[in-house]
């Protein structure tokens, strides 16, 4: 239930959402997070709906009705629960794990979450996003370079024409 606790003593690296890449051939999106220097990248593959939820938050789009993560934020606000931070806390078999730290009246709870939900929520409540150093070390950004090469070329050409 609380996988992040085992990592709480480890040092964390602050991340920000850099961009959401789209794979036009599949229903996949890639969340690209980067550290403060902009050099270290963490790519996380997510589904289309999850990617869209994050893109809406990045673009600060206000939808006519609350989307699911807006609802979660609103529930937390109504109950006076403070979403303090989210941490990408583990990676097993290419699946990333995240923890959402929520505080109320001095009581802290850690929620096990998919990184896509944790990040979609963090962007909406404007709380920091971290990754453990261990996870950052074990990331597989090698694939990302191939993806970037594959998708940026047609995109930039399209923009020029």
């Amino acid at each position, binding site marked *: 239930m609380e996988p992040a606790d085992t990592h709480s003593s480890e040092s964390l690296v602050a991340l920000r959402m850099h961009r959401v890449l789209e794979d036009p051939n599949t229903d996949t999106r890639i969340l690209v997070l980067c550290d403060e220097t902009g050099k270290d990248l963490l790519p996380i593959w997510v589904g289309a709906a999850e990617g869209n939820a994050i893109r809406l938050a990045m673009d600060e789009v206000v939808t006519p*009705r609350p989307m699911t*993560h807006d609802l979660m934020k609103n529930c937390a606000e109504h109950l006076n629960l403070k979403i303090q931070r989210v941490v990408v806390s583990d990676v097993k078999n290419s699946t990333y794990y995240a923890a959402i730290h929520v505080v109320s009246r001095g009581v802290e709870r850690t929620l096990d979450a998919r990184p896509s939900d944790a990040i979609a929520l963090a962007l909406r409540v404007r709380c920091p996003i971290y990754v453990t150093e261990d996870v950052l070390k074990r990331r597989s950004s090698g694939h990302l370079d191939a993806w970037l090469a594959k998708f940026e070329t047609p995109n930039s050409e399209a923009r020029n024409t």
Partner: protein
Amino acid sequence: MIAQMRVRGLMFDPYNNAYIVILRDEDGGDMLPIWVGKSEASAISLALENVAAPRPMTHDLLKAMLDSFDAKVISVVITDLNENTYFAKIHLLYQDAEFAVDSRPSDAIALALRANAPIFASENVLRKQTSEELEQWLENLKPEDFGKLDS
């Protein structure tokens, strides 16, 4: 006045490329169709079929947050349906106080199913939504349109 509803099923609407959640009034037999998107339908389908996803889905996470602070979902109420804008309220009980949170009906239903909370519809909604439209639509359905949600 409100009526308690049960989720009767989930269907694909090939004409609008969307899904329909069908709610039914437990007493009067009134049907209330609610059109939802694919990911919303999938969130409801997983709860209907009691599928435990390997990782918590978004509504599981919402429920986990409420559970971890002992907040309870008392009920959800579908309050209004307009052209493209549907309204619902989620009623929460937390530390002896009640809160009503604005929500889309799809989120409210997905949460209610996970929290075993009753789903209500305001009579105003039931009156507005004449079931003629649905019946006509059902008549046009082919047998292959029924079946499990393909997620």
